């Protein structure tokens, strides 16, 4: 799950795209996702693919790493594509569609901090955004702990056979669960002291600037040209 680590790291990079507002990036990505979903032209999908690659370059993101992360959904798309053999170029369309959309989503989260996106979700449901924030926070705490526990278990030959591996995986999962519950209870008490009522303010309100408007317009132009 080092992907979240990497994406979180990428989102704090400095580029003109990183500095755009979350809202404008979401609108831009949404337009391209819709375009991807509704086009059946391999050429148009290929054009979108190269546009995404250009955007990744413009955002100073490591192209090879993002392409590597995007291979995971591509594997699942392959299962569907293999089931579509015999329907002309449809398997290729399915693959490229899935790849494009996964790259677009990776691009969004690699240029926008998770907290900013959760904050935007908070406009719809503050409960959900608070839960997302807490999950995100816990995830990093647990990831470190589970890595340490797995290392310790390996030292004690905990994964020497299949049956032992399964049993120890269950034990590690439950130990981690208890540890995370204890951590969450502590945090919950600390939040209550601070007057927690089920809502956490996640990020400052972002300004909508001219460059944000231009970015959305860029998205609309691409959408209109390729939609036809």
């Amino acid at each position, binding site marked *: 799950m080092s992907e979240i680590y990497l994406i979180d790291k990428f989102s704090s990079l400095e580029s003109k795209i990183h500095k755009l507002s979350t809202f404008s990036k979401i609108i831009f990505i949404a337009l391209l996702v819709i375009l991807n979903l509704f086009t059946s032209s391999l050429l148009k999908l290929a054009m979108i693919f190269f546009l995404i690659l250009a955007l990744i370059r413009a955002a100073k993101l490591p192209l090879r790493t993002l392409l590597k992360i995007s291979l995971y959904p591509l594997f699942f798309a392959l299962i569907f594509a*293999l089931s579509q*053999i015999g329907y002309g170029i449809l398997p290729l369309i399915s693959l490229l569609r*899935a790849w494009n959309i996964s790259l677009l*989503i990776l691009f969004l989260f690699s240029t926008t901090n998770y907290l900013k996106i959760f904050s935007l979700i908070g406009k719809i449901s503050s409960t959900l955004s608070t839960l997302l924030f*807490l999950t995100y926070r816990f995830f990093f705490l*647990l990831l470190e702990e589970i890595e340490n526990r797995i290392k310790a278990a390996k030292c004690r030959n905990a994964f020497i056979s299949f049956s032992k591996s399964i049993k120890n*995986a*269950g034990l590690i999962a439950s130990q981690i669960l208890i540890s995370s519950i204890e951590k969450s209870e502590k945090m919950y008490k600390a939040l209550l002291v601070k007057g927690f009522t089920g809502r956490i303010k996640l990020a400052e309100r972002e300004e909508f600037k001219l460059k944000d408007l231009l970015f959305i317009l860029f998205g609309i132009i691409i959408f209109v040209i390729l939609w036809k």
Partner: protein
Amino acid sequence: MHIHIPDGILPVWLWGSGYLITFIFLAFALVKMRKDIKKFSLVPALSALMLVVMSIPLGIPTHINLAVLAGFILGPFYSLISDFIVNLILASFGHGGITLVGLNTLVLWIESIIGYYLFLILKEVTKNWFIRAWVSTFFALIVSTFFVIFIVSISTLSPEIFLHSKLEGLKINLQTFLALTLPIATLGAIIESFVTAFAVNYLKKIKPKILMIR
């Protein structure tokens, strides 16, 4: 077993319906949760655990997700929130499409609900928690796999039957799809059932209060 259906494969009417159904139940769950502020610590802890265990490689193209365990701990209602959060965060880095978050949440929720109720029903058959947890997890995971197959199979139909629209149905060879997914899903279900059963046994001894199941 959680099959990550990627974006752009299923027709819009299908994943749109998934979002609609999920949001309806999710809205109820979130409103209920607002009044039950104590769960604010448990839902994120479990969601984070689900995300973390998905990172443990099993050597086969599947992973455990502990959605049934989430049902055992959070109950059938709050587990939906956890399942949604997990799918949303997973989608952010390409594990399951962003358009499929609704449907994938329903897939996981089915596991949580069936696992939870089956565990309760099995009380009449055996008092052994390990066996109850194993059987209910395995059955829940197999049902959810067939739910995924059902989703794929109905997506092959023309949506005109349902919506009178001109959208195209998914063209797919179901036999090939079944041959590719069923063996992996069954193996994944066996592994996850053992992990969940060991976890439930351990929790029963160490911290039984957190379990919703009795």
